């Protein structure tokens, strides 16, 4: 390259030819820029963008891209904390709605069992006796009704 440049300084014909070539390059360059400037590119990007829109990545690919873009550990932490809070609230609700324990642990516990009695015989010395069987509470009641005053009525 240095030898060519040195020859150009000494050879008149080659230098003339080199200048002509440089001139041609300058004209071509000027012409190309002028043509390029005359082209209207205002609608170019919208056209490209409309074509890009038809090539959408799948839901799974987008999710993978979103996941790889940043730190998303909160996505696991937040639902986990919400689930733990829900479980805690449910436990509190369960304990809150439990019936209060009786003061005596041996208190009768009839609500949880079948209390329906089968009466095989019944005799009474009072005016009337009614047998009440309540299907709702599954409880049998013998109700005695007597107007005869007894010692218990006297305070």
């Amino acid at each position, binding site marked *: 390259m240095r030898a060519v440049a040195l020859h150009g300084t000494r050879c008149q014909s080659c230098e003339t030819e080199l200048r002509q070539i440089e001139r041609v390059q300058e004209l071509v360059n000027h012409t190309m820029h002028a043509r390029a400037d005359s082209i209207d590119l205002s609608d170019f990007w919208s056209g490209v963008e409309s074509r890009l829109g038809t090539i959408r990545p799948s839901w799974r690919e987008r999710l993978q891209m979103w996941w790889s873009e940043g730190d998303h550990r909160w996505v696991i932490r937040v639902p986990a904390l919400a689930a733990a809070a829900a479980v805690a609230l449910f436990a509190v609700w369960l304990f809150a709605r439990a019936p209060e324990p009786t003061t005596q642990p041996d208190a009768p516990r009839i609500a949880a069992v079948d209390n329906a009695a089968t009466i095989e015989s*019944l005799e009474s010395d009072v005016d009337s006796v009614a047998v009440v069987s309540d299907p709702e509470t599954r409880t049998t009641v013998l109700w005695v009704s007597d107007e005869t005053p007894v010692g218990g009525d006297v305070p």
Partner: protein
Amino acid sequence: MTVSPCVVVSALLALVGMPVTLAAQEELPNVVSSPASNAVEVRIGAVLASNSGKEFDARLASLHRQFDTLFPYSSYRLVKEERQRVPWGGKVGFDIPGGRYVMVIPKEFKNERVSMKVMVIEGSRPIVDTFLSLRNHGTFLVGGPRQHEGVLILSIGADMLP
């Protein structure tokens, strides 16, 4: 001379040091239809129900629904609660308010039900004399005897002992 198998088994067990009564028990047919245990626990509660006040004894919490559904009173107070263990066929008695007396005789345990005779005696007369069967751990109610400004409600139940 014939020797019964029971005697032979008893003799063999005596030789190895085991109590003979065990073998005798195993040889006996199961004549008792029921009891998984030798005793049963009878429980009774006496509740004074009235319309004076709106008290509901906290010890009666498990009976709240029954009382609300079955009786028209606004106040319920547990005045006595007692449990007694009794052998099958034995007799157990409870003194209750008003000079009354409750007698219970558990007879047998069959089909998960306890059969028993129950008498509520007032003075010298039985105001209730009944024979009934009730599911194990169940409770039935006897109500109506007048007491002060209200009535007495008795809860009577039986629990098989393990």
